[in-house]
């Protein structure tokens, strides 16, 4: 079946602009995660959705970052007033949810964001 997809694959923007990154999870997966990965580092947790609600947004670096998942499927990560330090790979993952310890996260290919 189809895996997690993310669009766009690459996004180049100018400092101060607004960007939206989209994630399509695996069908039927109720849990959705966003991560940010800088070069040479492991993915850094940003936010977790269970269904439509953001159950844990403790990883969002500041109020310029916001994410939604209005219908419990597709999610959009929104970044306002982008800064050069926001340049990174943004990864989305989904899982079945439900609290099972074997709830494996399946990652998408990521969106590489470059802020000039």
């Amino acid at each position, binding site marked *: 079946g189809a895996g*997690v997809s993310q669009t766009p694959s690459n996004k180049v923007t100018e400092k101060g602009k607004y960007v939206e990154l989209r994630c399509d999870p695996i069908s039927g997966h109720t*849990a959705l995660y966003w*991560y940010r990965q800088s070069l*040479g*580092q*492991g*993915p*850094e*947790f940003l936010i*977790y959705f*269970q269904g439509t609600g953001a*159950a*844990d947004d403790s990883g969002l670096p500041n109020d310029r970052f916001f994410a939604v998942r209005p219908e419990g499927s597709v999610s959009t990560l929104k970044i306002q007033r982008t800064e050069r330090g926001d340049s990174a*790979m943004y*990864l*989305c*993952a989904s*899982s079945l*949810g*439900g*609290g*099972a*310890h*074997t*709830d*494996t*996260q*399946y*990652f*998408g*290919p*990521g969106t*590489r964001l470059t802020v000039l």
Partner: protein
Amino acid sequence: LAKTTQPISMDSYEGQEVNITCSHNNIATNDYITWYQQFPSQGPRFIIQGYKTKVTNEVASLFIPADRKSSTLSLPRVSLSDTAVYYCLVGPGNSGGYQKVTFGTGTKLQVIP
């Protein structure tokens, strides 16, 4: 969340068995150990998960000693396509309905022809 420590990098020749050890001294009772593989410009891919003793699947084996303070990912007969970064994660099972995992810097495995 339990912190993990792994070697930054490893080299291996094709056809050899590779063992990558991860230390997680403060692992909690309900924590599971999960390993992911990541190729450049791709998202991480689940390899294997375990709680104790030994787990084996078609890709790898995971060895966990009785004290669970470390774990070893074993890749049999590596090929050039196994060149990637390998992450060891320790995260709570059944905690609030999800696993908030923390990735470290991982181990960069370079397979040499």
